[in-house]
């Protein structure tokens, strides 16, 4: 969409026939949701007419397992309080059942609504032919880019301060292709698939995203010294695209060196681009540096659909039901969702309230060094919404 707009303005004429960018990277006054649905570009699936009733948006909610259901409960409570014009369509996916009916239904609802909010879906079956449900969801909806916005929270005690990294991760192929077979007894082969078209799409997404958000540097993370063809292809594609964006600096780094640099000197990174598995590793490392899995939220973007979820995709079964789970990740995901839908007023309100709770009042759950329970955090956020709405309190950055 971005490229169509740009080509209309005759800024980038040669890209007229190439339209791989997602709406998230599009610079425009239309909200992201409108961009995706009023100007669809790629027809990889049969589109279903989008649901929109009287200015309210319908959003699919997939609670998943572990701490998902309780966090979703908090999100609904907060949304009811701020009167966000969003209606949730809840789809429960049963982890013990082997067939895919629930997942297919969930996919249909996301196609209908265009946007989803999800927790981590468990796949209890360890049988080899049952694909992970999260992976199935992402692949079906062709959500090829995953964006994790990692910004330090001033109120959370960490070893590293003032980190601001965006991680963009290829979301559908790579090591998560889930193509495995046992050729001989005791010997198993697992395929990692890297395609030129997907690498190009996600690289273009990354550069457009960097450009739209005023970012200066994109780092491609790879292991092309060992996996010369697959990661080599990914690296070559991003290097080739870097030439089209001369004002954005591009460099590349090998994944093991990258992990080492992240624990020692994380401030050298700005936007990071990588394949699926490395994305998982790096996003967990960065989340760990910033204080844990309970704070950051991630966004899955495709050309037509967007699904928002807690950043590190943890189920948190060990802490489910104990009222100590950190609800901030899910709440941040819902803020991202409101932004995407174009409800900037509500998103802003909620963001400032969360900011006040975490950074100013410092009411935090035990996993990030506090001593409050989840419900106390949520109550504090609700109280702060009222304060923030009345007093125009600015966002604390440091």
């Amino acid at each position, binding site marked *: 969409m971005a490229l169509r707009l740009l080509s209309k303005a005759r800024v980038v004429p040669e890209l007229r026939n190439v339209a791989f960018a997602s709406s998230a990277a599009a610079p425009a006054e239309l909200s992201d949701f409108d961009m995706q649905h009023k100007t669809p570009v790629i027809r990889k699936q049969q589109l279903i007419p989008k649901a929109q009733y009287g200015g309210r948006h319908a959003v699919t909610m997939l609670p998943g397992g572990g701490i998902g259901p309780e966090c979703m409960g908090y999100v609904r409570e907060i949304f009811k309080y701020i009167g966000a014009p969003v209606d949730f369509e809840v789809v429960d996916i049963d982890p013990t059942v082997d067939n895919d009916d629930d997942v297919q239904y969930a996919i249909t609802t996301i196609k209908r609504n265009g946007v989803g909010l999800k927790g981590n879906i468990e796949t209890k079956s360890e049988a080899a032919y049952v694909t992970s449900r999260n992976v199935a969801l992402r692949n079906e909806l062709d959500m090829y880019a995953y964006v994790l916005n990692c910004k330090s929270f001033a109120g959370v005690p960490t070893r590293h301060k003032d980190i601001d990294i965006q991680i963009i991760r290829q979301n559908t192929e790579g*090591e998560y292709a889930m193509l495995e077979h046992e050729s001989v007894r005791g010997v198993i082969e697992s395929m990692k698939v890297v395609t030129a078209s997907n690498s190009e799409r996600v690289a273009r997404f990354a550069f457009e995203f960097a450009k739209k958000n005023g970012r200066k540097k994109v780092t491609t993370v790879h292991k092309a010294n060992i996996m010369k063809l697959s990661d080599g292809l990914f690296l070559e594609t991003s290097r080739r695209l870097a030439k089209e964006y001369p004002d954005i600096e591009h460099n590349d780094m090998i994944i093991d060196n990258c992990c080492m640099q992240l624990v020692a000197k994380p401030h050298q990174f700005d936007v990071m681009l990588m394949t699926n598995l490395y994305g998982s590793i790096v996003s967990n490392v960065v989340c760990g540096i910033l204080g844990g899995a309970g704070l950051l939220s991630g966004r899955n973007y495709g050309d037509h659909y967007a699904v928002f979820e807690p950043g590190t995709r943890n189920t948190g079964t060990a802490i489910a039901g104990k009222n100590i789970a950190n609800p901030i990740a899910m709440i941040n995901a819902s803020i991202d969702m409101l932004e995407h839908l174009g409800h900037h007023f509500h998103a802003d309100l909620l963001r400032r309230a969360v900011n006040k709770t975490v950074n100013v009042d410092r009411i935090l759950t035990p996993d990030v060094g506090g001593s409050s329970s989840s419900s106390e955090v949520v109550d504090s956020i609700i109280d702060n919404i009222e304060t923030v709405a009345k007093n125009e309190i600015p966002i604390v950055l440091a």
Partner: protein
Amino acid sequence: MAARFIKKIVPTSRAGVAKYSTGVRKVTLIPGHGIGPEITVAVQKIFEAAKVPIEWDEVDVTAVRGPDGKFGIPQRAIDSVNENKIGLKGPLMTPVGKGYRSLNLALRKEFDLYANVRPCKSLDGIKTLYDNVDVVTIRENTEGEYSGIEHEIVDGVVQSIKLITEEASKRVAEFAFQFARDNKRKKVTAVHKANIMRMSDGLFLRCCRDLATKYPDIKFEERYLDTVCLNMVQDPSKFDVLVMPNLYGDIMSDMCSGLVGGLGLTPSGNIGKNGALFESVHGTAPDIAGKDMANPTALLLSAIMMLRHLQLNEHADRVQNACYTVLAEGKSLTGDLGGTGKCSEYTHAIISKL
């Protein structure tokens, strides 16, 4: 019969066969490229001063074109390591992208070195953001994602194959538990991604579980790779010994060495069925090569690991104490550790502390 009786009382040394009658061990030395030659000289000087009973057999492993046209390690190097069964290696260069296959990988394949051990311990005098790290990463060294089997099926679609075999997984799991027992470690954690790579990592996990039953004195747990990454950067004391397939091991071991101060301070050993190769894992640093600015600590710590493997523990302890004392003092440290000393000054400081 007497021989069998004696064998039961006197356990066969793991130390291999290349021993002179005076007890001096012969060890293959591979200086490597870049700063390799300087740091190997430093280690040799320190060992000479400490009167360690080791004779060095220096070889060069730069790839040569064999009679079949393919690049390979020179025959002399292969013969040397097969005879001595213990080696110490400096950093080797691997070109990124197209080119011949990594020399490091070739060495590992050639000598069937199946387990890579990297102990990461916080050192006094080297201040990092993490204190009291004491983690050992054991990584399967021969297969997994680094099999090097890749092809382009159609234009624009590339496939890379990750190979996991039962035999290799069992070997490395057994080594991990044995290592934990020998070094009085309490817990072994298997790191995997079996929720996504069900069959391959599932097989690895099954092998680890099977072996865990044979070592009931050691606690065994299994964790997902992302959870381990998350927890490792928050609280490294949660982990003791980690065992994992090739790629995860590569990344985790580098990350753990980042926690203690970088590759310039981390030893590494590759253990195989018929021998062992100890190496420094940092790069060749071509920009400081030949300027007497290199830091030999990584190679020295690997050499100390080698001495322990050869069961020359008193010598190992002496050299290690000297090295730790110099690091704790912080007076003659090299540039990468924040000091201004030269490589030769650092070496002399350690020799003086012996």
